[in-house]
């Protein structure tokens, strides 16, 4: 029997709110299917289930209470397992109510149906106070309030503050920087985009993310997690990209399997991700699966970005604005479009040699854009 628990959607997340179920008891679920909606300081997320099976029992009803990460929300039976003996009802079993014995007794005395109550206790449990309130004819519990934009932003700021403080405290960062000649990449993009209709045009960001994936093939030590005092190198490249929200706040959702996608697929994925990020409709796996982060502030005119690593990742790539600069090559002076790229990396996991090789590989990848 599997358990579906309140997931952790970020290094600093301690609690979440179960907003809605997408399935009910008795439904078949498949790996990757969206099973519930959870809200955290960073927004509303669709949470996937990671096994095939049948939803056995929904243990917690949606409600406004914050539940600790790890709370069991439902049980899932693998297809091969035998179902629990039927409870004697013909219809799918009603989800079991979380209600204290005292509350249940009081509810019977007052002729209040506990199924109609919103529990205010631990994990949504119905308490004696809830029953008393209902018995006195008070208004039913309010529907989940829409978070005021200011609350939401304040919450997000706190989240970011916690993650960044932790990162600074725990991770010994080292920083490297290089300048990359973007003339060939930009020329290639210009030619490509001239041939494409507007919906198919590639933004430089797409090229940059793919180039990062290529460079990681050379230096896989930067694509991993720091866990239990050691580096765990990951084979999959899920690259998180920093997306600024329209009125403040920053989210870094991940694009999965970047190394396996074509530029066109990446363009579509990136577009979709940015749109859903700004609409607050991301999936849990997009928040938890990143193996490295890329932050690009070029649009805002910043030339150099020194990032702060998001634990448990071990590196963050910063990309600045592309600027025309004098450039000397083979004794001749010219002008080239130059982009400053930085790497901030965890010194417990890698050292400057790895970092330098990565930046060199990134530079070379961008000099051969047709190979991306």
């Amino acid at each position: 029997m599997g358990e579906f628990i309140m997931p952790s959607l970020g290094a600093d997340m301690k609690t979440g709110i179960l907003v809605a179920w997408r399935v009910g008891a008795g439904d078949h679920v498949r790996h990757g299917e969206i099973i519930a909606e959870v809200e955290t300081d960073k927004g509303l997320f669709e949470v996937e289930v990671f096994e095939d099976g049948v939803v056995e029992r929904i243990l917690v009803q949606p409600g406004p209470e914050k539940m600790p990460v790890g709370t069991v929300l439902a049980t899932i039976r693998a297809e091969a397992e035998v179902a629990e003996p039927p409870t004697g009802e013909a219809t799918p079993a009603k989800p079991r109510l979380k209600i204290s014995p005292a509350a249940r007794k009081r509810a019977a005395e007052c002729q209040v149906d506990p199924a109609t109550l919103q529990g205010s206790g631990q994990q949504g449990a119905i308490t004696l106070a809830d029953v008393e309130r209902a018995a006195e004819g008070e208004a039913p519990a309010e529907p989940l309030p829409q978070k005021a934009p200011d609350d939401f932003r304040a919450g997000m700021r706190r989240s970011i503050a916690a993650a960044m403080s932790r990162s600074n405290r725990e991770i010994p960062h080292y920083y490297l920087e290089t300048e990359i000649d973007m003339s060939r990449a930009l020329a290639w993009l210009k030619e490509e985009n001239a041939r494409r209709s507007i919906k198919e045009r590639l933004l430089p960001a797409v090229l940059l993310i793919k180039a990062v994936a290529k460079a990681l093939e050379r230096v896989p030590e930067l694509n991993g997690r720091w866990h239990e005092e050691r580096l765990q190198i990951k084979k999959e490249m899920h690259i998180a990209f920093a997306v600024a929200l329209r009125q403040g706040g920053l989210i870094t959702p991940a694009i999965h399997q970047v190394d396996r996608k074509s530029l066109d697929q990446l363009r579509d994925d990136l577009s979709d991700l940015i749109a859903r990020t700004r609409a607050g409709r991301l999936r849990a796996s997009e928040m938890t699966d990143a193996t490295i982060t890329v932050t690009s502030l070029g649009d805002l005119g910043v030339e150099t970005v020194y990032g702060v690593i998001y634990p448990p990742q071990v590196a963050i790539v910063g990309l600045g604005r592309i600027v025309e600069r004098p450039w000397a090559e083979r004794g001749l002076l010219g002008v080239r479009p130059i982009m400053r790229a930085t790497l901030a990396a965890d010194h417990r996991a890698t050292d400057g040699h790895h970092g330098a090789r990565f930046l060199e590989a990134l530079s070379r990848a961008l000099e051969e854009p047709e190979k991306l």
Partner: protein
Amino acid sequence: MTEEQIRQAVLSGLAEIAPEADPEEIGPRENLREELDIDSYDFLNLLIGLNEKLGVEIPEEDYEKLVTLENLVSYLVLRLV
């Protein structure tokens, strides 16, 4: 297609990419990207929206001409009217 229709399409496109702003309040000579905090992704979406509304394809080399509301409307008027 009149200039007014084009202007309305542009304002509606701007409202789509910057929903919290009031496009009617943007001065004709203000820098759109700065005023509305639009990045290159938003700008591309704006142009895709205009492509859908007005059927006009804007080549990449013309992007830099489209700084203000006035620039954008005049450019489109030239192409469409």
